[in-house]
């Protein structure tokens, strides 16, 4: 309770400070303009937002529905770019939250972070990128995407540079992507993590729209002594990847892109050193848990206004692993053919892709294949009638292994969506209908029997658009039916929304109401009501106050115990945003 009061007080204090600060900044900027007449230009935003969440469950003591947002959270955002001259700029990227809410990854479960853990927590960014001509200094949190096979997903807190003299590229960055976090059995349990240091570098040459050739290097290394007690499910690791990128763009929209990479990754640095596996000294020394494998991807195609076509092939060896993409699933070969067609004076758009994913390229696993096919075909026949058709297919098959039958799962989706519009003198009526059929077949690996899971969804939406009025309502009705052996789910939803401007367009309002009636087999109905509203108020030329409120009431039928259990959850979000907008002074 005390904590909540402190957070709430802090928020209002912050809002007050933010408002005052915004005025101060305005005032300060005016002085700067008047007195110094320097060539300073500031763009970007800053703001502070409070989020509150509430959950009330009935009967008391029932825990069948868990909270899904932090009870209180304050987020700060400071992202101005200072342009001091034509050649010198300073982009700032500070956004951070008051309370950690990590559920997955190394920071999961942490509640009282140290300062080091706070600044390297992936929920916070503290980045400065001063840039002079072709030289950029990178300080603090940086998410650097060097290439698709080296590094790109992980934020690193550290220091580095990005130099681009003429057509050359020289990049280097080093820092910490995660701090050591002690394991705690709990409650609350903390997964724990080892401190990981990262290094990355890139050299190459690039000319926009013509070519790019780069050599990339990325390394990460855990410190085994950085967590005590150490994590239970994670071992200290070390890995490097070296990749070569070559992209070529030719005339008439033809392009060719390719990347080849080799990774050497040690899954547990506590395992003994070995000479039977090749080391890559001085970067990495082989342990018995080290593997060295390869990956490559290439795409070739043609892009134009009316027609795109491309082929993409991606291979990831079973032992390929990089610290720059921690969730990458290796041991696969993907190949897809993609096309996009704009025809009939852009009134017809077709987007399609077909391909296959093969797992177990290195034969260390059971062979598994996934067929992928997507089609989206939209046609605007005339001013009054448009039709969209889409079809998706995903098929997955794997060998039987020790079971009598192999895995075979096939998902098919077909959607048809006609839209009618009628224009009157003061109103445009838009009527959109949609039907979707989804079929999911799954084979039992013991009996060989296939069960079908069928889903039908029908939706009708009516949107009247007033030509002389700022009011925009919409109405919709939806029917959803899912049928699988042993369970039949029916959902029916009525929803309406209204948006409008007021106070000389300084105030934007939007409200939404949605009611869903649900039924599972022969159990009694469940009921769900969701109501929400957005209020955006423009306080000054550059200052906006945005508020979002929503409440969700759900009451079960007798499909769960206790019968008739219910919950109400509320989410509120309010915050100020200031937009920097100084005109360049001459």
């Amino acid at each position, binding site marked *: 309770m005390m904590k909540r009061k402190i957070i709430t007080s802090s928020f209002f204090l912050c809002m007050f400070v933010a408002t005052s600060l915004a005025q101060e900044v305005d005032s300060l900027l005016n002085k700067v303009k008047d007195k110094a007449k320097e060539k300073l230009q500031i763009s970007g935003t800053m703001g502070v937002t409070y989020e509150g969440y509430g959950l009330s469950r009935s009967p008391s003591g029932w825990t069948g529905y868990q909270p899904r*947002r*932090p009870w209180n959270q304050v987020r700060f*955002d400071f*992202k101005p770019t200072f342009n001091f001259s034509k050649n010198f700029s300073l982009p700032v990227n500070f956004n951070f939250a008051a309370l950690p*809410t*990590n*559920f*997955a*990854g*190394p920071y999961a479960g942490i509640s009282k972070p140290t300062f080091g853990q706070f600044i390297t927590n*992936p*929920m916070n960014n503290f980045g400065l990128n001063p840039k002079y001509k072709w030289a950029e200094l990178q300080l603090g949190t940086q*998410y650097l995407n060097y290439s698709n096979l080296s590094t790109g997903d992980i934020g690193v807190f550290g220091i580095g540079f990005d130099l681009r003299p003429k057509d050359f590229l020289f990049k280097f960055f080093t820092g910490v992507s995660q701090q050591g976090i002690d394991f705690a059995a709990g409650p609350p349990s903390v997964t724990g993590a080892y401190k990981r240091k990262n290094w990355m570098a890139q050299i190459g040459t690039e000319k926009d729209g013509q070519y790019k050739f780069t050599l990339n290097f990325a390394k990460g290394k855990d410190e085994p002594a950085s967590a005590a007690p150490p994590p239970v*499910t*994670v071992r200290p690791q070390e890995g490097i990847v070296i990749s070569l990128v070559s992209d070529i763009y030719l005339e008439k929209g033809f392009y060719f892109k390719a990347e080849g990479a080799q990774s050497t990754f040690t*899954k547990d640095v506590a395992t003994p*050193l070995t000479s*039977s*596996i090749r080391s890559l000294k001085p970067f990495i020394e082989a342990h*018995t*848990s080290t*593997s060295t*494998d390869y990956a490559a991807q290439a795409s070739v195609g043609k892009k134009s206004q009316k027609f795109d076509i491309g082929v993409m092939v991606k291979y990831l060896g*079973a*032992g390929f*692993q990089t610290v720059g993409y*921690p*969730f990458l*699933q290796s*041991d696969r070969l993907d190949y897809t053919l993609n096309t996009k067609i704009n025809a009939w004076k852009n009134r017809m758009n077709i987007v399609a892709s077909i391909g296959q994913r093969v*797992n*177990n390229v*290195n*034969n*260390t*696993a059971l062979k*598994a294949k996934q067929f992928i096919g997507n089609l989206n075909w939209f046609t605007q026949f005339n001013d009054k009638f448009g039709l969209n058709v889409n079809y998706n297919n*995903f098929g*997955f098959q*794997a060998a039987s*292994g*020790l079971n009598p039958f192999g895995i075979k*799962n096939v*998902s098919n*989706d077909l959607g048809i969506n006609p839209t009618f519009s009628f224009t009157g003198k003061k109103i445009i009526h*838009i009527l959109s209908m*949609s039907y979707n059929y989804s079929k999911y077949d799954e084979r039992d690996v013991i009996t060989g029997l296939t069960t079908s899971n069928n889903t039908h969804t029908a*939706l009708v*939406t009516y*949107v009247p*658009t007033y030509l002389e009025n700022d009011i925009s309502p919409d109405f919709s009705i*939806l029917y959803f039916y899912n049928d699988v052996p042993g369970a039949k789910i029916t*959902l029916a*939803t009525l*929803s309406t929304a209204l948006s409008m401007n007021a106070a000389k367009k300084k105030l*934007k309002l939007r409200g939404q109401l949605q009611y869903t009636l649900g039924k599972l087999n022969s159990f009694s109905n469940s009921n769900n009501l*969701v109501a929400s509203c957005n209020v955006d108020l423009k306080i000054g030329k550059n200052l906006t106050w945005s508020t979002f409120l*929503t409440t*969700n009431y759900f009451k079960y039928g007798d499909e769960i115990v206790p019968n008739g259990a219910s919950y109400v959850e509320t989410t509120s*979000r309010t915050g100020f945003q200031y937009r920097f907008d100084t005109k360049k002074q001459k």
Partner: protein
Amino acid sequence: MMKILFAAIAMFISVTGTAQLVSTLVVNAQPPAQLSEWGERREVLTLIVRGAGAIAGPFKVKTEIKTLDGTVIATSDLARTPVFTPNTTGTTILVANDVMPLEFMTFTGKYQKSLQRTGKLPADNYTLCTQPVNPVDYRIQGEQQCKNFYLATTQLPILMKPYNEEVLDGKKAQTAIIFRWSPVVPTQTSPVTYRLQVFEVLAYQNPVQAVRSNQPVLDKEILAATQFIWQPQLSFAPRESESEKLPTFVWTIQSLDKTGLPITQTDGSGEARSEPIIFFVNPDKTKKPKKEN
């Protein structure tokens, strides 16, 4: 007197040096495919060695891995493997790191290549044989014990629906979103629990950052099924009307064994979490907002 003493010592060494050892080998029928992981998990391999009616002396363990047709694909280098001295109770318990130290194992041909590239052997049935031998001249000191096991890498689920970067109709998504994924391969001996998590990607975040930072708006454990129908009970109104960025979500599956632990701990993130993919919700199909982050 001294002669008698030397004779007694020589007799003792002779008896203990030639004493037969009785061993019992226990191997998990479906151990982890990553061989280096065997050492961390005591339940994978246990070798119990005890003397047969005499005081046992020091010994080494000769280890072989064979295919089912008897071809030897790996042997321990006895010159380098450790020497074990039976403890005072007469029974010695050894685990994978003792019996099959990878740094002292020599693999042949394609198996060596596979191990170097992937840390695993090709998916197949194998036999592991152990035999206690004299540490000096490698004379056999007990019967060979063999056990079969099956190796296949655990493949985590591949996320199927919503597919990567799919744009869902907000009016449909507010009632129900269907999630589908492929099952863990090979089929496990006990049912897998799939932990489905959906995270909202905030304006300043990239998808993986959202996974590693945010509280999930859906966190559901599903036992042995590969589909889930989610009633989001969310309002999908665009949060930032000026930027018109579509509400963006990232979803992933964590595969857990019957004890609630990640089903594989050495691949990828160590959390048995499938590669996350994103989907967008378009609350207003009459507009064409940007979907990029």
